C-alpha cells in the first residue's frame, strides 16, 4: 500500500469515528434503531477504493470506536454487525446485480441481524428475536437513506 492510500484510509477512519460520535449523541429510543452514518464511509471505501480497504477501514473503526466511546461489551455487538454487514455488501456488489441502494439496504439490515444474533448468544435466549421484525423495517428505511446519500458521495466527491 503506498503512502497516498494509507493517508486516504486514515482520513476515512477519522471520518468514520467522527460520524460514530455524532450518532452516539442521538438518544437511543429503541435499542438497535439507528441511521448508520458510519456505513456511508464504508460504502464509499467499498466503491471508490477496494473491498480489502473497506474491510480494513471497518475493522479498525470498530476497535477504535469501542476503545474510545464504548466498552468490551459493545465491541462484540459492533463487530458482529460490521462483519456481517460488510460481508453481505461485498458479495452483493460483486454479483453485479444490485445498485448501491440495494447494497446499502442489505448492509443496514445485516447490521441489525448481526447484533440480534449476538444478543441471542449472550442471553442464551431467543427473546431478543422479537425486536427483529421492527428492526428490519427501520433498517430498510435507514439503508435507503444512507444509500441515496452514499450514491451522491461516491459519484461526486473528489478524492
Amino acid at each position: 500500500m503506498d503512502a497516498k492510500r494509507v493517508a486516504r484510509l486514515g482520513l476515512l477512519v477519522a471520518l468514520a469515528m467522527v460520524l460514530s460520535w455524532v450518532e452516539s449523541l442521538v438518544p437511543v429510543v429503541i435499542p438497535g434503531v439507528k441511521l448508520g452514518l458510519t456505513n456511508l464511509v464504508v460504502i464509499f471505501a467499498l466503491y471508490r477504493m477496494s473491498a480489502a480497504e473497506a474491510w480494513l477501514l471497518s475493522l479498525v473503526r470498530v476497535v477504535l470506536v469501542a476503545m474510545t466511546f464504548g466498552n468490551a461489551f459493545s465491541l462484540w455487538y459492533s463487530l458482529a454487525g460490521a462483519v456481517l454487514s460488510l460481508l453481505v455488501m461485498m458479495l452483493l456488489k460483486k454479483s453485479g446485480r444490485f445498485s448501491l441502494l440495494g447494497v446499502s439496504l442489505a448492509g443496514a439490515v445485516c447490521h441489525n441481524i448481526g447484533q440480534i444474533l449476538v444478543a441471542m448468544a449472550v442471553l442464551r435466549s431467543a427473546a431478543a428475536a422479537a425486536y427483529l421484525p421492527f428492526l428490519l423495517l427501520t433498517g430498510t428505511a435507514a439503508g435507503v437513506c444512507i444509500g441515496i446519500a452514499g450514491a451522491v458521495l461516491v459519484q461526486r466527491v473528489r478524492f
Partner: protein
Amino acid sequence: MKIRRMDLVLAALVLAAAGVLYLLLRPASQPGGWVVVTVDGAETGRYPLSQDQTVRIGGDTDYNILEIRDGTAAVTQADCGDHTCVRTGAISRSGQSIICLPHKVVVQIEGAAPSDVDAVLG
C-alpha cells in the same frame, strides 16, 4: 444511480421477512399467566402474574428489581449501564419480554391467565 430490479426484490424480501417474523413472534392478545426470569440462559424464578410482589434479580450489585403488580410485570430499578430494561416498561401478554443485556437477564411472560369462565367452573 439507477435502481436495479434486484434492489426492489431485495427490499420486498426483507419487508416480507419482517411481516412473517412479526406474525410468528407477536405476543398473544390475552394476558399471560407467569413471569419467568432467566439469567444467563438458566431459569432462576417463575412467578404468577396474578400475585403482586417485588423480586430482586442478582446480588448487591448487578441487580434488577422486578415488580409484579395488577397483572403486569416491570423492571423498575437496575444498576446496569443502559437502563433499557427499565425503559421497556410494563409487560403483561404472553410472549412479551424485558431484556437486560449487561446482566444477561430475560423476563418473559408465559402461559395464559386462568380465564373467568374456568375460575367459575372450577
